Every structure is written in structure tokens, then in C-alpha cells.
């Protein structure tokens, strides 16, 4: 038994073990299942009510941005903040940066991730199998984006769009007052 135990220790001391990577995914999946099982009422268009998940994401994002930006100087403009989200905020959370950023320079940004971490086990090559369930996996991340932008001083609406599965587009609409 002894060699096995020491073996296990050397394995877990590595910075990214299996548990590090998957713990968030399993926990996220359970939270999603819990929230979905709790809300029976659907809204008018037959879509599921995922606001609770979105709210959780909002507060997580609001807090996490505090820590991630501590080494950073102040941002000059809105676009810098969005760029920061794409290149420095995304990788520690989702293991890769955002693949594509588009904007109309009037407060609408489209962030595209071609292999979104929470979706990549569900489909590849345009499979449509889990397409109608996938918004459940995205709601938390939409909130995360909205919350992190809120703490940077941008009030926004975040929507997600999925057409083929591992890829996902987040539409950020900045609300000007």
C-alpha cells in the first residue's frame, strides 16, 4: 500500500492535476442541474428561466475581477477593458483566450470562443444533439461577464448565441445612461 500512497502524493503536488481541472466543471454542472430542477415555471417563449444561474455568475464575476486586475494600471477606455477580458480574464478561467472580438464602436461587442470549455464535451463538427439544453451551461458565464464588466464600471446586457456546439458567441451590449 505504501508505494501507492507516495505515488499519489507526487501526483497531486503537480500544479494542474485532474481534480483541479474538472472540479469546477462538475460543480458547475451540479449547480446547473439544481437550478434547472428547482424552477418549473417557464417564461412565455418556452425558454427556461435561468436568471438564478445568471445572478450567481454576476456575483462571482464581480468578485473575481477585483483579484485579477490588481496588477493592472487603470484602463483608458471601454475597448481596453473588453480586450482585457478577452486576453487576460478568459485564460485562467477557461484555459484559452477568446478567439475573435468584433465591435461596432457603439457599445456592442461580440466575443467568440470557438471551443468553449463548458461545451466542448457536448458536441463537435456541428452536432445539434444538445443544442437546446446548452443555454443552461452558458447562463452562468453570461453573468460572469456582466458582473466583471459591472465592477469595471460598465453596465451591460450579455447574451449568448450558439449555432454549432463547441463554439459560442457572447453579445455584450453596453448600456449608456
Amino acid at each position, binding site marked *: 500500500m505504501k508505494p501507492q500512497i507516495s505515488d499519489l502524493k507526487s501526483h497531486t503536488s503537480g500544479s494542474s492535476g485532474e481534480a483541479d481541472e474538472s472540479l469546477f466543471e*462538475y460543480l458547475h*454542472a451540479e449547480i446547473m442541474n439544481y437550478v434547472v430542477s428547482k424552477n418549473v415555471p417557464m417564461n412565455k417563449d418556452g425558454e427556461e428561466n435561468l436568471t438564478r444561474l445568471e445572478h450567481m455568475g454576476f456575483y462571482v464575476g464581480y468578485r473575481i475581477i477585483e483579484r485579477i486586475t490588481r496588477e493592472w494600471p487603470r484602463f483608458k477606455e471601454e475597448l481596453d477593458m473588453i480586450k482585457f477580458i478577452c486576453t487576460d480574464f478568459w485564460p485562467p478561467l477557461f484555459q484559452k483566450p477568446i478567439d475573435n472580438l468584433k465591435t461596432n464602436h457603439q457599445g456592442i461587442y461580440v466575443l467568440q470562443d470557438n471551443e468553449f470549455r463548458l461545451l466542448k464535451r*457536448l458536441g463537435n463538427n456541428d*452536432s445539434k*444533439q444538445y443544442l437546446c439544453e446548452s443555454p443552461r451551461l452558458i447562463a452562468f458565464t453570461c453573468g460572469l461577464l456582466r458582473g466583471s464588466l459591472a465592477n469595471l464600471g460598465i453596465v451591460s446586457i450579455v447574451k449568448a448565441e450558439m449555432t454549432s456546439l463547441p463554439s459560442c458567441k457572447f453579445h455584450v451590449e453596453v448600456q449608456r445612461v
Partner: protein
Amino acid sequence: MTVHNLYIFSRNGVLLYYAEWNRLNKSGITKEEEAKLMYGMLFSIKSFVNKISPLDPKEGFLYYKTSKYTLHYLETPSGLKFVINTDNISQNVRQLLQQLYSQVYVEYVVKNPFCQLNEPIQSEVFKSKLDELIKKSPIFLNRSL
């Protein structure tokens, strides 16, 4: 070298997945009956091997071989059973089964929140990744027999 077919059983003997590539002889019974028969035989062999072994059986049953084919068996500590039939000259099939478990089953079934565990696998990604793994392995050589 060739891979004939593959069964995945849960801890309780539910057939989670079946796939076949080069199978020439059909059993003549339904897939469900065949799965029960297969599971029953594996269960018996396992207990036979463990009881009859003159030494500590360690991993127990690993494979059996007939004049025509070899059945390779991998059971995980959680009770999942991977069974693959190949011809007699295939090498490193155990390694292939390990890969199948860790790179395909865990990744695309366990980590998919919409897959129910211990129920037959419906995921299309799982099917395509499994097919890909088997077809790119050196054991799989499509040969008309």
C-alpha cells in the same frame, strides 16, 4: 490485425454501449439477449478465475483466446467493464482499452452533464470519438477476411 466489436457494461451489467466493425458471424439473437449472455459469461469467468487461481489473482481475468479471435477484458475499480474482440495477433489491446476509458469515456460521458451514468450512452460525440480512436489505432486494419 483487426478489431471485431466492443461492449461496455456498467457495474450492474447494463449494456452501456455496443459497437461493431468487422463482424462476420451474427449471434442470431437480439442485442439485449446477447449482452446478457456476454455479461453472464464474463461474470462467471471472473469468479472462476479468482476462485481457481493458485496464487493471489491480482488483476484476475485479462483475456481469453480461441482459434479465431481474442476477447480482451478491462474492468475499472468502479466496476465498468470494457470488452473488445480482436483477432489473435493484435498487440497492446489492453493499452487501447485504457485509452478508451480515460480519453473517451471519462471525457465525453463522465464530463458531459447531460449524460446519465449507468444508462445506455446516447451522446453523438462519444460515438464519433470512439470510432475515431479505434480506427486510428494500429490494431484496426480493415481487411476483408
